[in-house]
């Protein structure tokens, strides 16, 4: 048991170090921070942003003599901003996961990895944790911005909703990265891996549209698989065990399929 943990930790550290040494990783971080920062400012601070909207509503209400219906600025902001972040992540995450195995295959180190005493799924878990940590580093500045913005909130922000919402974002990222890791293990071309991952994730994202077109029990089952529906409900503040189980299933499926694909690779002649 301790050996397995040590193995996972070793893979984890190796991957993480390679991220911090890679200019591409920093460039992706810079681009993501620019886009996310832009959305943050536009949604909250901009002239069409939420603070302006709320101020206009209040002014109108005072003018009319009619009380304004209650409006939770923080709740609305989290819903819109994290919804945008979810969509943005759909583009970023395939790029993060594309190199996990495809790079190794391209460089020829995959044979070493596949035949090493470290089990396949331990390698997969280590890589997944590393790329997830990298994603959390990407998200960290956003938490800082939110902390600054929410410090000016009155009445004070209740912790439940922000925690649930960000937890949803992390779960979504973990699911997508896990599936992306599997796709990456199938091919030597990183670009192909990124494109296929993107297509797969897009398909899962819009699954609820497909499901409503099909209808019936098959449609209901497919609709349940939709990432968007469960992510939205988490961001709203509704934590359902079925959503948690679904995300967990995606993560587990990704790791398992990756291990299987590497296992098969072991016995293939290229």
């Amino acid at each position, binding site marked *: 048991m301790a050996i397995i943990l040590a193995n996972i930790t070793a893979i984890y550290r190796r991957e993480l170090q390679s991220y911090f040494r890679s200019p591409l990783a920093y460039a992706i971080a810079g681009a993501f921070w620019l886009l996310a920062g832009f959305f943050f400012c536009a949604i909250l601070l901009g002239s069409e942003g939420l603070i302006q909207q709320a101020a206009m509503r209040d002014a109108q209400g005072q003018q009319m003599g009619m009380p304004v219906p209650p409006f939770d600025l923080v709740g609305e902001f989290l819903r819109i901003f994290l919804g945008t972040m979810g969509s943005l992540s759909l583009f970023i995450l395939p790029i993060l996961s594309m190199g996990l195995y495809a790079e190794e295959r391209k460089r020829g180190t995959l044979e070493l990895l596949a035949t090493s005493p470290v089990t396949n799924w331990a390698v997969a878990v280590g890589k997944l944790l590393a790329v997830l940590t990298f994603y959390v580093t990407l998200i960290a500045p956003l938490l800082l911005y939110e902390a600054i913005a*929410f410090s000016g909130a009155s009445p004070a922000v209740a912790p439940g909703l922000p925690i649930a919402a960000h937890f949803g974002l992390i779960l979504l990222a973990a699911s997508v990265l896990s599936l992306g890791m599997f796709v990456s293990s199938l091919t030597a071309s990183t670009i192909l891996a990124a494109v296929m991952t993107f297509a797969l994730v897009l398909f899962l994202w819009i699954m609820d549209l497909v499901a409503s077109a099909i209808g019936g029990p098959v449609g209901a089952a497919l609709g349940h698989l939709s990432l968007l529906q469960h992510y939205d409900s988490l961001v709203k503040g509704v934590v359902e065990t079925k959503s948690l189980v679904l995300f967990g299933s995606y993560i587990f499926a990704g790791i398992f399929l990756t291990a299987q694909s590497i296992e*098969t690779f072991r016995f293939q002649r290229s």
Partner: protein
Amino acid sequence: MKKSLSRKTLRQGLFLGSLICISAGLSAGFVVGDWGPLPVFLLALGGALLAIALLTQQNTAELLSRRSTQAGTNAIATTLAVLAILGTVNFVAARYSAKFDVTERQLFTLAPQTQEVVKTLATPVKVWVFDRALGTGDRELLDRYRALNPKAFDYELVDPVENLTQAQAFGAKELGAVFIEKGERRTLLTTLGPTAAGLSEVELTKALAQASSDRTEVVYFLQGHGERPLEGEQGAMATAIAALGDRGFEGKPLSLTDNAQIPDDATIIAIIGPQRPLLPGEVTLLREYSDRGGNLMILLDPQVEPVDAGLGALLTPWGIQPDGRIAIDASPVGQLVGLKPDTPVVTQYGEHPIVADFRQGISYYPVAQPITLTDRPGITATRLLETGDQSWAESDLTASPLRFEADRDLQGPLTLGVALERSPAAEPNAVNPAPSAPPQGRLVAIGNSTFVADGWFDQQLNGDVFLNAIGWLGDRDDSTLSVRPREPENRRITLTALQGNLLALLALAVFPLLGFGSAGVIWWRSR
């Protein structure tokens, strides 16, 4: 060589053929929408061709014994097994899912009263929505209801354009009609539309609770003093009577001059806009009815001689007195809706089950008078309808321009409607020992009757005021009426200029530059 070539082309042909068959089968199935014999046959044929093509490879036997094939098949079998397990786990999780609503105000959880009503539904109830599509909010609400009691609660969306006969069977007259079906009885709940607010939990629960009680309550409308007729000519309240019918209340006229007796089945007696005073004998009968625990709705228009239409002996023990002056509303809201100053607009409602779900909705009362309220022991009074600050009760309508005169007029905000209840415990002259169910007796008094007339009843919340008041008067148990709508916390963010600039700087400059800068530095170093 030739042999293997032709075999190769044959196999390629088989592959191509199988691909064509499979795609033909799939597209036939999807386009027609029905997986009939033809698509299935095509799919089977394609599958068979594919199998033949795969199995007739030259070195099949060799292939099958190779380790990679064994490992591959092993992998596929394990994968299918794991996917099946995951599928089952998710299926079970979807059926038996626990929900935790972590929003501050429990916005996405149904109220305890709703939960009780739905869980204890005696007979199955079905909600029919006749519309092209159901909004996500409404669908979620109905899903939550169904999750509480899937055996007894169900809902269905019917497209009235496609299913015209079904729509007609229900009597659905417009898009967005929502019906509640309980056994044989079908009642119209509300009409959804682009301007309407959508299904509300309060409305739905109230309707469910009402649908559960099968008796029809009778509301008697007093006649003979110029009150609003129940049907026919201008100024009638036919729309209101029809709406009462939908809610399980039957409206009947009552003339106390013909038959000097209050009928036994009178759940509520309503006096709607009398123009002439009542006879003392009638007032005595009504007072006795009220003292016995009867329920009264009294809508009094101003400009009637005398001001209280002779009901003084009835109203004074309750602490009510109509003012007589006309309420004038000078706030901009009325002008925005197209009303004149003599039609006060009410957007502020008291804390009472009748108006609990109105929030900031609008109701208006053409030519109304304020009601003066005095405290009386044993009476619980609640001000229902209040006008805004820019209103007053004008005593002289001929003055031009209309202005508030402190010596003659009453300054707003004015109370246009009150709801009163006689508390059972505080009966001072109870000679008999405490009865098992002390009569309560309720009364709703509003200084205007025009708002329930045809043409005014359907405007904004006017109809709801009337129907909810009748509902409260007739309800023995008002636990369902006290369902309150969920509202989010009213929260604002105020940032100083410093904070705002800091945020923009961090988000748009500092971190992006950090990222790109580090990328540049590392790339330069590793050259």
